[in-house]
C-alpha cells in the first residue's frame, strides 16, 4: 500500500495492534479542541466503550463511523454528558475540552451543554413557533431583550441556510415545516446559543437525498466557525463531509486519521474491510 506523497511529507507509521486506540499520523496544524484519554463507558455492568483515546481538532469536521452498536453514538453523547440521564451509566477516563475535563466533579453540566450543542437523528422541534424554537436556548439562558432575540434568531436561521424559506412565517408552528427544514431548524436552534462545538448524531439519516445534500453542504460551511463531530452510518457521507474519520468497532477505536487516508488507504485491515463493505 503506497500513497503519492507529493504534497505532504508525512510518513506512514508502523501498524499498531488492532484495537489499540492510537493516532497513526502527526496532527495537521489545527489545534486540538477535544482531547479524549482512556475513556471508557459502562451501562451498568456492560462496557460500551473501551479506553478510547482520540484528539478532535478545532474547526474541522470529525466523523465517527462503524457498524451498529459499535459505540459511536454512546461516545458522541458522552462529550456533552447526555448519557447522564441514563440510569446506571458510568464513565471512566477523561474528555477534555479546552483543557477542562468535562467529567470533573464540579462540572456545570448545564453550562457544558451550552458550549457543546447537539443535533439528533430524528429532528425534534418543539411544538412551538419557529421563532420560539430558535429562541428557546436564549430564553432559558436569561436573554429577554426582544431586539437581541430577533437578531440572534435571524442570524442563526441564516447560518442554518433556512432564513430565506421561513422569514415571513416565523410565528407559524415549527411542525408545519418539511423534514429537511425541521432538521435545519434544529441546527439553527443549536447554533443560537453560540456553541463552540456541535455534535451531530446521524443528522441526515431520516432525510431524502436533496435534503441530505443541503445538510452536508451546510456542515461544510459551518466548520469555518464550529468544531463539528458527526456520527454517521453512511460511509460515503463521512467521506464527503469530514476532514478526519474515526472508525469504531465493538466499543473500541480501531483507527483514526485523515478522511482521505481512511478511504483510500487505511492502515488496519478491519477498517479496510468495513469501508469496502466486505463486512456489514
Amino acid at each position, binding site marked *: 500500500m503506497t500513497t503519492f506523497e507529493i504534497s505532504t511529507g508525512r510518513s506512514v507509521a508502523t501498524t499498531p495492534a488492532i484495537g489499540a486506540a492510537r493516532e497513526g499520523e502527526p496532527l495537521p496544524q489545527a489545534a486540538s479542541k477535544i482531547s479524549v484519554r482512556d475513556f471508557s463507558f459502562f451501562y451498568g455492568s456492560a462496557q460500551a466503550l473501551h479506553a478510547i483515546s482520540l484528539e478532535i481538532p478545532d474547526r474541522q469536521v470529525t466523523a465517527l463511523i462503524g457498524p451498529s452498536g459499535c459505540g459511536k453514538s454512546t461516545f458522541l453523547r458522552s462529550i456533552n454528558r447526555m448519557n447522564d440521564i441514563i440510569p446506571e451509566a458510568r464513565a471512566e477516563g477523561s474528555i477534555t475540552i479546552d483543557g477542562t475535563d468535562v467529567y470533573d466533579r464540579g462540572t456545570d453540566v448545564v453550562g457544558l451543554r451550552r458550549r457543546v450543542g447537539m443535533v439528533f437523528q430524528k429532528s425534534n*422541534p418543539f411544538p412551538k413557533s419557529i421563532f420560539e424554537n430558535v429562541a428557546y436556548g436564549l430564553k432559558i439562558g436569561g436573554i429577554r431583550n426582544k431586539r437581541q432575540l430577533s437578531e440572534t434568531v435571524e442570524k442563526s436561521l441564516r447560518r442554518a441556510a433556512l432564513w430565506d424559506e421561513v422569514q415571513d412565517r416565523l410565528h407559524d408552528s415549527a411542525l408545519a415545516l418539511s423534514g429537511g427544514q425541521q432538521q435545519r431548524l434544529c441546527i439553527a*436552534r443549536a447554533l443560537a446559543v453560540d456553541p463552540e462545538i456541535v455534535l451531530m448524531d446521524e443528522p441526515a439519516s431520516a432525510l431524502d437525498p436533496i435534503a441530505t445534500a443541503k445538510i452536508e453542504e451546510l456542515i461544510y460551511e459551518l466548520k469555518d466557525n464550529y468544531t463539528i463531530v458527526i456520527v454517521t452510518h453512511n460511509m460515503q457521507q463521512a467521506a464527503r463531509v469530514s476532514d478526519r474519520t474515526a472508525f469504531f468497532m465493538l466499543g473500541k477505536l480501531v483507527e483514526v486519521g485523515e478522511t482521505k487516508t481512511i478511504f483510500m488507504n487505511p492502515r488496519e485491515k478491519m477498517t479496510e474491510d468495513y469501508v469496502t463493505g466486505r463486512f456489514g
Partner: protein
Amino acid sequence: MSNSVRRRVVSRIAEALCALAVVIALVPLVLILGYVIKQGAGSLNWAFFTQMPKPVGEIGGGMANAIFGTVVLIAIASFLAVPIGCICGIHLAEYPHTRFSSVVRFAADVLNGVPSIVIGIVAYSLVVLPVKRFSAIAGGVALGMLMIPIVVRTTEELIRLVPSGLREGALALGATRTRSVITVILPAALPGILTGVLVAIARVAGETAPLLFTSFNNRFWSTSLVQPIGSLTVQIFTYAISPYDDWHRQAWAGAFLLVMMILTLSIVARLAVRRLERMNRP
C-alpha cells in the same frame, strides 16, 4: 359447502352479532336520553334558569341558584384537583420506577374506586365537623378528591406520551430537568391534560351523594364559600323525592340540563383533543 364460502358465512354471522351487541349496548343510553328529553325538555324555560325555587307548594320558579352552585363547586374542585393532580402526575412520569411512585400510583387507583359517598363522609369529617357547618368549600373538597385520581393518571400518561426527543432536545440546549419539564414537556402535553380535566369534570358534575353532607343544599342564592350552597344534583334529588308534581317536573328539567351539560362537556373534550392533536402534528 366449500371452505371459502363457509368462512365468508361465518364472518358475516360474526359481523351481525357484533352489530347486534352494539345495538343492545346503545339501547339503555337511547332510552335514558329519550326519556329525559321527553320529560324534561318541555320544562326548560327562561324562568328555570333565572329564578329561585318558590316556597313549598307554589308553582313555578327555577333552579338558578343550583346551577350557579354546581359551577362554583366544580370551580373549587378544579382549583384543588388540577394543581395537585398535575404535579402528582408529572412526578409519576418523571420518576416512574421508584418505590414511592408505585405506592402513589396504587393509592390513586384505589382512590379512584372508592365510592363517592365514602369520599363525602371523609370530606364531612375533615371540613364540616371542625367548623360545625356545611359549606361550599366542603363540597368542593369532596368533588376535588374525586377528580384527583383521574387527573393524576391522565397527566402521567400524557407526559409519558411526549416523545423523548423533545426532552433530549431541551436538555441538549442547556435546560435543567425542571426547566425542560416546565417549558417544553408540559406545554406539549397540555392539550391532553386539559382534556383529562374536562373528563374529570364530567365525572364529578353528576355526583350527588358526596354533596349531601358537605355542601348540603341551599334554597337561596348564595355566593359565600363558607355557607351551604345549592347544586343541580342535590336539587334534583330534593325535588324528585318530594310529593309535588311541579317539583317533579322541575326535577326532570334539571336532569335534562345535567345530561346535556355532561354530553356537551364530553363532546367538547373530544373535539378539543382532535383539534389540538392536529396542531401538534399537522
